[in-house]
């Protein structure tokens, strides 16, 4: 028997049918006939969505599950919550599982918020008395004091989401599964959710969090699991796994951007730290490239750095007249504001009246060595990595 709050997944495999479009009797008869005649059916109807997933989570661990869309994250959560059965392997959990697999799961539209709390609670296996004891906490957390006796169909989607999250989080599950719920809700409520997850964690519960918001995952989880194409690609401390995962995303981004597009092209991008070394956090840095222009453009050139996505951490603008042909452009930063890590450099060029000469696009990698960021307070999300120099004194 596992200790309470633990999850053990042993060599789990899961497959789905690929072709779900038509399931008429006629199609089945055709397939059966094809088989009888010794022909192979037209296509393999099965697709493996989880392959050989193997891990164990001990009580009280906070695990972040990352992976691109369709990599099997939600399926894995469903298997852990026993909603779905695996094809092969073994799943063991011990303790009440509170699952929040999608926004407002299990919320019934025709009932009031109050009635929903009672029903959902009993579905999670909690007696009515216990639900009643926590009722006020749930309502207060969801900020639904005034709407609790209204039918849920009159709620806004944010209110529904808050209700769903509050029920799942306040019914004291031993294992809490959270799938992409932080995407909705305003940022104040998101922060509340993160705080609540931390409270659940400190009470000794186990948490699995799925999100594309890597910053939130990094703030809450200690351990990371990375699913890639249905396989467990990495399992380790969250910083390490997120680093690997970001690296992969960057690699995809880079592979997409071998050539710059637009009327101004970028070639021979070089990024140098002091004395031509790899750039380091909080040290001087030079970014230079050859701009190839098809005309004499009066334009603004932009260079920015991001964590792989097109949303930059910082941007520098250069208003200039770029002559036809090749010219070398250099951006000298006296102090690189990025901490240790890998980043993507983006470039864009725009003419008068915001006319696009070259779209905002990745043009290269920026690897930064040296100093790391200070950690954030527990469950506080940092918007973006940014290195700030400073000294403390105590008098």
């Amino acid at each position, binding site marked *: 028997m596992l200790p309470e709050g633990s999850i053990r997944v042993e*060599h789990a*495999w899961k497959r*789905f*049918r690929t072709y779900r479009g038509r399931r008429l009797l006629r199609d089945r008869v055709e397939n059966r006939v094809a088989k009888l005649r010794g022909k192979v059916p037209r296509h393999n109807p099965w697709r*493996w969505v989880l*392959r*050989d997933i193997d891990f164990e989570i*001990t*009580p*009280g*661990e*906070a695990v972040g599950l990352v992976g691109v869309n369709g990599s099997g994250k939600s399926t894995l959560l*469903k298997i852990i*919550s*026993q*909603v*779905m*059965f*695996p*094809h*092969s*392997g*073994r799943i063991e959990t011990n303790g009440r*599982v509170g*699952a*929040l*697999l*999608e926004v407002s*799961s*299990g919320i*019934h539209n*025709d*009932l009031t918020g109050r*009635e929903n709390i*009672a*029903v*959902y609670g*009993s*579905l*999670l*296996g909690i*007696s*009515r008395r216990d639900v009643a004891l926590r009722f006020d906490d749930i309502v207060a957390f969801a900020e639904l004091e005034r709407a609790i006796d209204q*039918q849920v169909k009159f709620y806004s989607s944010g209110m529904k989401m808050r209700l769903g999250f509050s029920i799942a989080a306040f019914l004291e599950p031993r294992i809490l599964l959270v799938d992409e719920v932080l995407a909705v809700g305003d940022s104040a409520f998101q922060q509340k959710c993160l705080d609540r997850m931390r409270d659940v*964690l*400190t009470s000794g519960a186990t948490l699995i969090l799925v999100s594309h918001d890597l910053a939130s995952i990094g703030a809450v989880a*200690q*351990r990371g699991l990375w699913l*890639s194409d249905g*396989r*467990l*690609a*990495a*399992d*380790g*401390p969250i910083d*390490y796994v997120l680093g*690997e995962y970001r690296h992969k995303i960057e690699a995809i981004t880079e592979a997409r951007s071998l050539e710059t597009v637009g009327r101004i092209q970028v070639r021979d991008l070089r990024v140098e730290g002091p004395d031509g070394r790899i750039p380091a956090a909080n040290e001087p840095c030079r970014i230079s490239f050859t701009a190839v222009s098809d005309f004499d453009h009066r334009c603004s050139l932009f260079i920015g750095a991001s964590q792989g996505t097109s949303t930059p951490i910082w941007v520098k603008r250069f208003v200039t007249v770029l002559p036809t042909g090749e010219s070398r452009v250099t951006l000298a930063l006296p102090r690189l504001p990025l901490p240790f890590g890998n980043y993507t450099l983006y470039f864009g060029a725009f003419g008068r009246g915001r006319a696009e000469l070259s779209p905002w696009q990745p043009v290269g990698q920026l690897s930064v060595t040296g100093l790391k960021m200070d*950690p954030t307070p527990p469950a506080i999300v940092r918007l973006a990595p940014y290195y700030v120099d400073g000294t403390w004194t105590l008098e």
Partner: protein
Amino acid sequence: MTDSHIADTGAADSGDVAEPVSIRIRPEALGELPDSPPAALRFRRGLELRRALRELRGTPEIVRSLAERELRSRYAQAILGFTWNVLQPLITVFVFAAVVDRLDAKIATGGVPYALFVYLGQLPWTFFSSSITNGSNALVANTALLNKVYAPREVFALGSLLTRVVDTLCAAAPLALFFIADSRAPRFPESLWAIPLLAILVLFTTGLTMLLSVLVVYARDVRHAIPVIVQLLYFLTPVLYGFDRLHFLTPTIYSALNPVAAVIDGLRRSVFFGEAPLTGPTVAAAISSVIVLVLCYMGFKHFEQGIADVA
């Protein structure tokens, strides 16, 4: 204060939450995995007694909550609300009584007013038919829930059945009026036969509803077929007439195939005439409904495993 001291306290803070995890990269697994898992790994859902018992403990509460939810939501925006439970069967029976009266059809009721005669048959029948029709949708209607939260799947069909029990009890209230209007009373203690008879009805209905609810998840065709079959069964069950009008087979064999017939006949015999239900048909119906329940539940458990994959 040194840096290392600060680092130490930080580590201790996070250390009491969980043990440090070791890095496991699995490049060796990437690429060298077989196309499908070894047969020895095939998942078999074992029957864990402890788990089953633990789940069973919470089941009545969930069933009750689900039934409550259905009842509340059904009449959430209705003005007459629960009254419909009584109105529906009443109106049905009066319509039939009026039609039969007009047609001048001779139906032997043994001296019992026709409306009362039909009403006592209509009650078990409505329980059966509405349980089947609505209960078969119990899983499909709750896919959003059962795809996300684990609860023993039986609860959805059982919850729906419980609402039908409540409905039927409500609908039974006018029975008293019928009796008073005809200044007669149910025969006592023979009316107590109703308890085993209704038990047969509930077992049979529960079995069928369970199996149908899971079949509907796989093939929605079932849902379209049910009303037609129920309509047909209505005339193959002695609701509008006595059991003696159905003479395709011997009553015993017929009751094994359609236990509802034996139940209705038994109810009429005991409540109206103070007789015991016919032994052969009643025993046949009892055995048949237990077999149906067991087989249907086994089927339910088998098909249940794939619900989340197809729902």
